[in-house]
C-alpha cells in the first residue's frame, strides 16, 4: 500500500494524505461518549451509498455507546470485583471488553457483506485506539 510520508509540521511543503485510505473521525457533539461521525468521507463518494454507510456507522455506534453505559449489571460486576480486591478481573471479562468483541464481529460481517463487494475494507476501530474508523480502498 502506498502512503505518503509524514512531513514535519513546521515544513512549508504540503502534506499529502494517503490516497487509498478514508478516515471516519470521532464525533464529540454528544460529549465524550464513543461515537463516530456518520458523515460520508469525500473519498468514499460514489463507492458506497450514503444511507448504507450511515446505517453501518450507526450500528457500530450503538454497540460502542452500550459499552460505555452504566447499567445495573455493570455496577454489580464492578462491586463484586471491588469486594474481591479486583482479583476477579484476572479471570473474568468486563462488559466493555464483551462489547468491543461484538463490535469486532460486526465489522467482520460488514466487511463480508457490505464493504467487501465494493472493494473496501473497514479496520476495526479498536485496532486504531478508538480514534478513527479506517476504511481502505482496495482498488482505486
Amino acid at each position, binding site marked *: 500500500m502506498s*502512503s505518503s510520508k*509524514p512531513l514535519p509540521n513546521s515544513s512549508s511543503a504540503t*502534506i499529502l494524505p494517503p490516497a487509498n485510505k478514508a478516515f471516519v*473521525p470521532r464525533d464529540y*457533539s454528544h460529549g465524550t461518549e464513543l461515537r463516530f461521525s456518520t458523515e460520508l468521507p469525500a473519498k468514499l463518494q460514489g463507492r458506497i451509498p450514503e444511507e448504507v454507510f450511515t446505517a453501518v456507522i450507526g450500528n457500530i455506534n450503538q454497540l460502542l455507546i452500550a459499552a460505555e453505559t452504566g447499567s445495573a449489571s455493570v455496577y454489580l460486576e464492578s462491586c463484586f470485583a471491588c469486594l474481591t*480486591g479486583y482479583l476477579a478481573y484476572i479471570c473474568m471479562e468486563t462488559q466493555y471488553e464483551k462489547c468491543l468483541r461484538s463490535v469486532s464481529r460486526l465489522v467482520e460481517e460488514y466487511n463480508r457483506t457490505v464493504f467487501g463487494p465494493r472493494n473496501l475494507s473497514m479496520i476495526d476501530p479498536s485496532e486504531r485506539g478508538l*480514534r478513527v474508523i479506517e476504511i481502505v480502498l482496495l482498488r482505486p
Partner: protein
Amino acid sequence: MPKRWEVYPGKSQVLCSGRCISAKNLSVFYLTLALIVISSCLFLAFDCRLLAVTLSPSVPVLAAVQFIFVLCCLLRTTFSDPGIIPRGTPDEAAWIESQLEGPQVDRDGNYRPPVRLKDVQINGRVFKLKYCFTCKLWRPPRASHCSTCDNCVDRFDHHCPWVGNCVGRRNYRYFYLFLISLSVYCLYVMVFGIVNLVLLAFFSIWSVVGLGGFHTMLICRETSTNEDIKGSFNQRRHPDLINPFDQGNGLANCCYVLFGPVTPSLLNFREDEIGLGSSISLVTNNGRNGTVSAAAASTAVTATPAVRYSNLTRNNNDATSNSVGHVNNSVQVISESLPAQLPGDGNDVIVKNGNGAPADGVISGGTDAVGAQNSNTQSASSVHCIV
C-alpha cells in the same frame, strides 16, 4: 514480527512482557510501598499479639484484610494502563495534518504557527479540541498529554509520583479506593495501637502516678504516710491541732524535704567495735610522701583490731590517689560529699580517738591535724563507712 509493547514509543516503563505499564521512575512508589508494608508488619507482629488475646482475634484478621485490599488497589493503580490513547498511525497523521492550516506569515510579517485547534460543540457548549503533535491525534475532551510519560491520557487527572503512574480514566477508581482504604486502615491501626498502649500501661500508670501524687501531697503538707493514716494532723478530726512541722506553705515544705540537709548515718558500722573508754593511738600524716603514708597506714591498720566487715576491699598501695573508687563504689560516692572542712590531698588517715570510736579505711580529701578535727574526722570516717 515484534509485539506492540516492544515498539511502544512513549516514556512509560512496560513490564511483564506487556502486561503491566508504569512510569519510568518508581523510587517514590517504593517508598510508599515500604512505609505501608513495614508499619503493617510491625502492627501485626507486635500490637496484634496482645489485642488478639485481650480483645478479639478478629482485630488482626481485619487488619490483614485491609492491608491486602490497600496493596491490591495500590498495585493496580501503579501497574495498570491509566487510559493511554495509542498514537496515531503515520497515515492518520498525514490525513489530519493535511487538513490543518500550515504555518503562515501574516500581513505584518509575523510567523503564525500551524493552527491545531478545532471547535466542537458539545451539548451546546463550544469546546476547543487540540491536536497533539507528539501523539498525532485530536485529543478527546478531558484528555491531556503527560510530559513525564509522554502519552496522551484519556480523562487525565494527574501524574502521581507516590503511585508511580499517571492517574487517568482507567485507574482513577483504583487510585481513589487506595486513598480511602489507606485512610481507613491508618485510622484502624492508630486506634488499636492506642488501645494496645492503654492496656499495657493502664495499671502501671495509675498505680505509680497515683502513689507519686499522693506523696507529693504529703510532702507539701509536711506529713508522713503514717501520720496521714493515723490522722494525727487531720484537720477534720482535730481541728485545733496544727502541724508544728509545717513550714507555712507547700513550696517551702517541698524545698525542705527534697533539698534540705542530708543527715549522715550515725551507725558507724565500719568502725571497730570497742567499748567505751579504751585508749587508741592516733596516726595521721599529710601524705606528701606517698610511700611513707602508705607504709604508715598499712602498719597502723595491721595494728588495729580486725575489721568486722571485710567485704569492703582496701588498696593501701595507692595512697596518694584521690579517688577512693578502688576501695569500693559506695565509698567513692560518699567521699565526694565530704564537707568542705576536709581539704587537702588524698591521704590515708587512720583515726582513733579517745571516745572509743575507732576509724578505719581510707579517707580521700585529706584531713587536718587530728586533735582539732576529731569530730570532723570522726564524722568523715563515719561518712565513708556507711552507704
